[in-house]
């Protein structure tokens, strides 16, 4: 199970956090501090796994951003490494060649997308196309609500088909 997802910039700034196990704010800050210390200092040619407090953290760097996921010791590391990449590809498709700034200003979008990818710390959808379709449908819903146009259910039906 994925216990949490962290997006941290090379300077240690937090870009996104999602916690699937209960952590208090104090613990969250501690985890982030500890892990940025461990991960940001690792050299480029090392493996993508870090052992930490009896768990494993799988991370991958994309440009200036580190994507980290914390898993149980016996979970499959490579599988999670590719969940990260899968997420990045979906973000890329959504934003059109995503960059750190996109995620900074649209962190809420990053959350929506993550919620279509993971629930309860497990992968729920492995098709990029499906995720893209669902996110587009949500966006459409919000747009429609804004315009106060025709009935909501109609649109969902159309958009998610």
């Amino acid at each position, binding site marked *: *199970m994925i*216990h949490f997802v962290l997006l941290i910039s090379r300077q240690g700034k937090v870009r*996104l*956090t*999602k916690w699937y196990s*209960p*952590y*208090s*704010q104090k613990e*969250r*800050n501690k985890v982030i501090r500890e892990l940025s210390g461990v991960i940001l200092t690792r*050299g480029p*040619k*090392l*493996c*993508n*796994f*870090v*052992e930490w*407090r*009896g*768990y494993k953290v799988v991370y991958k760097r994309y440009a200036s951003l580190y994507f980290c996921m914390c898993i*149980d*010791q*016996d979970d*499959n*590391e*490579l*599988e999670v*490494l*590719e*969940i990260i990449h*899968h997420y990045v590809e979906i973000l890329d498709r959504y934003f059109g060649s995503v960059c750190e*700034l996109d995620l*900074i*200003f*649209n*962190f*809420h979008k990053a*959350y*929506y997308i993550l*919620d279509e990818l993971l*629930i*309860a*710390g*497990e*992968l*729920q*959808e*492995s*098709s990029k196309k*499906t995720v893209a379709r669902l996110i587009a449908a*949500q966006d459409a*819903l*919000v747009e429609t*609500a*804004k315009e106060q146009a025709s009935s*909501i259910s109609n649109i*969902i039906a159309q958009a*998610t088909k």
Partner: protein
Amino acid sequence: MALSGMRGLSVFISDVRNCQNKEQERLRVDKELGNVRTRFKNEKGLTPYEKKKYVWKMLYIYMLGYDVDFGHMEAVSLISAPKYPEKQVGYIVTSCLLNENHDFLRLAINTVRNDIIGRNETFQCLALTMVGNIGGREFAESLAPDVQKLIISSSCRPLVRKKAALCLLRLYRKNPDVVNVDGWADRMAQLLDERDLGVLTSSMSLLVALVANNHEAYWSCLPKCVKTLERLARNQDIPQEYTYYGIPSPWLQVKTMRALQYFPTIEDPNTRRSLFEVLQRILMGTDVVKNVNKNNASHAVLFEALALVNMLLCLVGIGTGLSPQTVMHLDAEKEMMSQCVALLGKFIAVREPNIRYLGLENMTRMLMVTDVQDIIKRHQAQIITSLKDPDISIRRRALDLLYGMCDVSNAKDIVEEILQYLSTAEFAMREELSLKAAILAEKFAPDLSWYVDVILQLIDKAGDFVSDDIWFRVVQFVTNNEDLQPYAAVKAKEYLDKPAIHETMVKFQNGLPPFSFNIPAMFKVSAYILGEFGHLLSRRPGCSPKELFSIIHDKLPTVSTSTIPILLSTYAKILMHSQPPDPELQNQIWAIFSKYESCIDVEIQQRAAEYFALSRKGAALMDILAEMPKFPERQSSLIKKAEDTEVDTAEQSAIKLRAQQQVSNALVVTDQRPANGTPLVGQLSLVKVPSMNNNTDVNSADRGLSPENGALTTVDPQPPSADADLLGDLLGPLAIEGPPTSAVQSQHNIVSGLESDGVVEAAAIVPVDEPQNSVQPIGNTAERFNALCLKDSGVLYENPHIQIGIKAEWRLHHGRLVLFLGNKNTTPLVSVQAIILPPAHLKMELSLVPEIIPPRAQVQCPLEVVNLHPSRDVAVLDFSYKFGNNAVNVKLRLPAVLSKFLQPISVSVEEFFPQWRLLSGPPLKLQEVVRGVKPLPLMEVANLLNSFRLNVCPGLDPNPNNLVASTTFSSESTQALLCLIRIETDPADRTQLRMTIASGDPTLTFELKEFIKEQLVSIPTAPRPQPPQVPPAPPVAQPTSSAAALSDPGALLAGLL
């Protein structure tokens, strides 16, 4: 720049980004929080848009790590908004802002439930996502049935059902009772037929959690998992959008194989064959490719396949009843195992670090399969190279693997390699390294002096990364091995003589940091050993008490406060050993004692005062400071420490489940069974110091914890903590050294008749009216009995009031046992009664047991035993007493077992074979195939037999896999009778063997056969927390596993010799 679509939010984010430093950022954030707070105060004026904007700002601030202690209500209230945009924000912000224990979440349960059961699909999705991410127990209890309905509903679209499946997974993790196994297992099997891969992926994750808890209920899912795997890996029957870099959903493949690992065995031969075919395809068909992602994905599948093969085959090792057809495939499967190891051997040498890491990790897991260790050992050199890898993650894996693969044959190489690495290793790894090296050295030491060398080097090199347990353990080890004591003393002296120590000392005296902290541990252990065993060196030059004293005392000014108490004890011991007394030395040491009598540190002060007073007692000193008794054998606290690093994982991993299974199967009947660290305190040899743990007992009675060092508990009011066990170990070395409070104070009592404050105080906190029958035994009584079956003295039973020790002597069919009943308290035990319930074959006479055992006194009660005829039955001691208002009664098995009447005898070839032929066939010669045997190496089986006084005669049997043993049995009816034993083992399957027993008496043959069998098959240990007053079940307590040991008629016919 893509903006958030909410201008206020974007402005705020860029403001925060533009802050030059943390302080500015904090100011900006505080300003914003103030702003949001005022806006929320008059909520009526807020438009939905503004509300959304503010809760997003709150979330952003919270994400940055600031505390946000208001506005949760606003976020939660958005959940009940009628329109999608608000609801969406409400759900997502709530699920990020609150965690499962938050009170506000409870307020939302109703709204959430309405959304889940409502008709609006998008609302359902939002609600399921939030519950799946942060739902707690309460959600589990109120929502699980609705969520289950959605998963199997035919009217719901896949997007709802897949979310519902994962949502249920979350709820199940929070409370497994919410999924009713009966109805759900079939539904689960149906779910695995699902065509939509999103739903199938989610359902598979759910299944993993379910089978991890209870695989039996979900047997029907097993063939479906295999089918799914075939569909993906072999047929590649999958929509294009679900392939990932050309690989059919690697995630689903991994999940499916993970679920399969929880089923202990696959009996259906067809299913098993199909599965192995797919696995073979994955193992052989995975190539290294250029594309990183494709490579990762295919190797994710490959490593999961390796894990699955490992699970399937490690069971073959254990031998859980497989059908004959299955066994036929075993050869092919074993072949696959070697393929796996070969593959891993390749992986650990590749350039790609991820693969190297995983290769090492999986090789460690592979160690669980018997027969594989030898193949893995071939890669030892490569693994040692990995210990020097630039990547700490890889080094950790290498260390773990080396630790796991270490045995007697390679311990020296591996431990020395670790030691060498220790000096260059980074701090983050040193503690782990030193702990592991210490454990390996202890477990596999080829000779004892090597062990001492290694540990001393270790303490020297690892410095302050050596935990105290390590040096405690050395002390224990040295104390328990007399041969080792002079050597250890020499080594300790050498270390103290070393100029290196002097140098650091000099630096320290000049006030120059750093004071190297390896000195304290090194110093403590050296000083302790010299105090205890230094007198063994007295004939050597430079080792007179006086010289030893000055070597140690030279360093006293430089040591830390925690070391001084140990030095004081050492001085007291040196003083005691200087015979005839040397007045000069005596005056010197007295001067030191009196100097420290006014020390501000209580521990030091107390020791100094007491040693000073004691050392004037003359002869009494000899008794009180006598050499430490041996420590009872128990699981090394180091090993325990190494095992104690459990963390909270979502599902118990299959590998751990299996490992536990193996441990319980492999329980070895030797002294070193895990005693869970509850130390046996009193020693039989300590009759003279009955009070050594007087106030300790009060503590342990109070807390139900293992007794701690008396001195520490009085001096230092630490709450009981995980340290209790550490102290438990400490207790040993310091029982005399450490708690002079207790030992010495009571001595005061005896010697001078003074009232001792400590004791009175201690007595004052005895729980006065304990409820009846609340006395818990200390230590595992069943394990103690088992240990006593192998040796002749030790503790039979202990609770906070009393300790019952036993010492036995056996000659032919006679035995003389002495029961030592020691009252551990400051009040007498009254109405003491001991009744022996002998089985028919034993005549037992217990001498009179006094009705009262005075405070802290020990009573010895001899017990005469005569063995009338062969039998495995066990005698029981029915023991009762009263302590205060507490009437306590325990029934204890006495270790007067069959083996005690055996006398090992060695026979030559010429003597053996005529006898063996003479005793032909039943009932004098019995043969039986025993299954379900603990899988032990042949050596250990031999040791086991020897420990039961069955003398293994090597070389009698030409087949190296067989053991032949001989012994004589004595009873009144049979007199001394020769017994011959032959055990034939199967190197391919250690869990079964055939044994043949012959003797001149049919009853003896039968009883001896059953007795040996009981020792060989797994003995389930009694549950650890024994319910009070439920003694080990009398006579028939030893489980006979008749089912596991059905005799094999075919084997009976084939009398080999």
